[in-house]
């Protein structure tokens, strides 16, 4: 869906998405890194379970909700990636204790 510009010389940051390593770049938001990965990163809504991907990328639509380091319903488009960050694609309602 998206590819990286060849001008992009930012250092790589390693994150983990549903258990699999992913090379993001320093300064990427979680949502940008997920969309750039080419993997299926669709979440499922808490209402009907419908699949969604980020819509606005500026913090207003809440379609980028994702579990980051064990905390559910984070706005992935507002959180920069960090080395070793654990990402889980959220399916449905937020789980208890996450």
């Amino acid at each position, binding site marked *: 869906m998206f590819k990286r510009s060849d001008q992009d010389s930012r250092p790589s940051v390693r994150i983990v998405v549903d258990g699999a390593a992913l090379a993001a770049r320093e300064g990427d938001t979680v949502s940008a890194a997920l969309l750039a990965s080419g993997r299926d990163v669709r979440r499922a809504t808490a209402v009907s379970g419908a699949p969604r991907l980020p819509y606005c990328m500026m913090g207003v639509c809440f379609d980028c909700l994702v579990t980051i380091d064990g905390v559910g319903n984070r706005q992935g488009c507002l959180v920069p990636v960090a080395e070793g960050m654990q990402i889980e694609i959220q399916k449905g309602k*937020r789980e208890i204790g996450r």
Partner: protein
Amino acid sequence: MSKDYDVAVVGGGLLGSAIAWGLGRLGKRVVVLDEGDVAKRASRANFALVWVQSKGLGMPAYTGWTMRASETWGRLAAELKDQTGLDVALQQNGGFHLTLGENEFAQRAQLVTRMHNQVGAADYRMEMLSASEVKKMLPLIGPEVSGGSFCPWDGHVNSLRTFRAFHTGLKLFGIEYFPERPVSAISRSGGEFRLSTAQGEIRAGKVVLSAGNANQSLAPMVGLSAPMGPTRGQIVVTERTMPFLPHPLTTIRQTDEGTVMIGDSKEDQLDDRTLNHAVSAVMADRAQRTFPHLARLNVIRTWSGIRVMPQDGFPIYDQSESAPGAFVTCCHSGVTLASNHAFEIARMVAAGALEPELVGAFSARRFDTNHAATGSGYY
């Protein structure tokens, strides 16, 4: 006879629409007059409990009235489902009031004893449970929970969907609902009531005032009184989460949609456009001490609403002597009592007289004698 309707109901909230729906069910020609989009509406600010425990301290009749509502709510939910297809998510498997620390536990235990000792009140099996007993039923409680009271009759419902079901039902019954039409005056002549609105006059054989705290100014127009003592309440709501709470609590409940509602405050401030974050903070703090895992959930909405509250906390159902056919109805617990309003009050209005054996205790004449102590119309 030139009257347009058998009954005009003033107020389209949960109370007015329950009565109107009940009248429609009996085949009456009804009109509901309501305010518009921005109004003080308890029907969209409530906590949605169908609640019995601790109701009626100081007025045994209220305990019986509440029990009756609890017993017939299932029938109401079923009839609404049949008629409109809407499931109002009624759940009546018992509810808790949980306490934090020993003082609160002792206080609650005292209240339970006073309720048991009250002569003439129905026994609704409210009992104190220790923290470990509570934990068996609510495994996620935190270490600060000292126990609480449990009543098997308690429950909750989706109150917004109930509101929608009533309004859907009104339409199906052919009842006219006129929003944005507040009533400015009511007079009675030639055996009918004339209700003045900015869009013209409405005529009806009977009139039921169900306008919440506004009943205070409407009731005198038909020779009735409704002394009100409103308070403000705030509620905090979280995002949807997986089901974790099998029973509703007095101040925490999980909706069928998955959100967690956290109540509630009782404030004298009556501006429902503002919020007191510190009061919300107390509620939030108590909620996270009750269920520690809630601490991480996101709060997505908060609101404040004005409680419809008769001065002594108990309902007012009254009929006018000087203007026969005029009724006033107001109460705090419009959700809990919805089934009574739809079945009993509607039947009495249709018949033209309130039944003293059921609702005689709720006449506003009790305020004349001036011994009405503030009781627990609330929980």
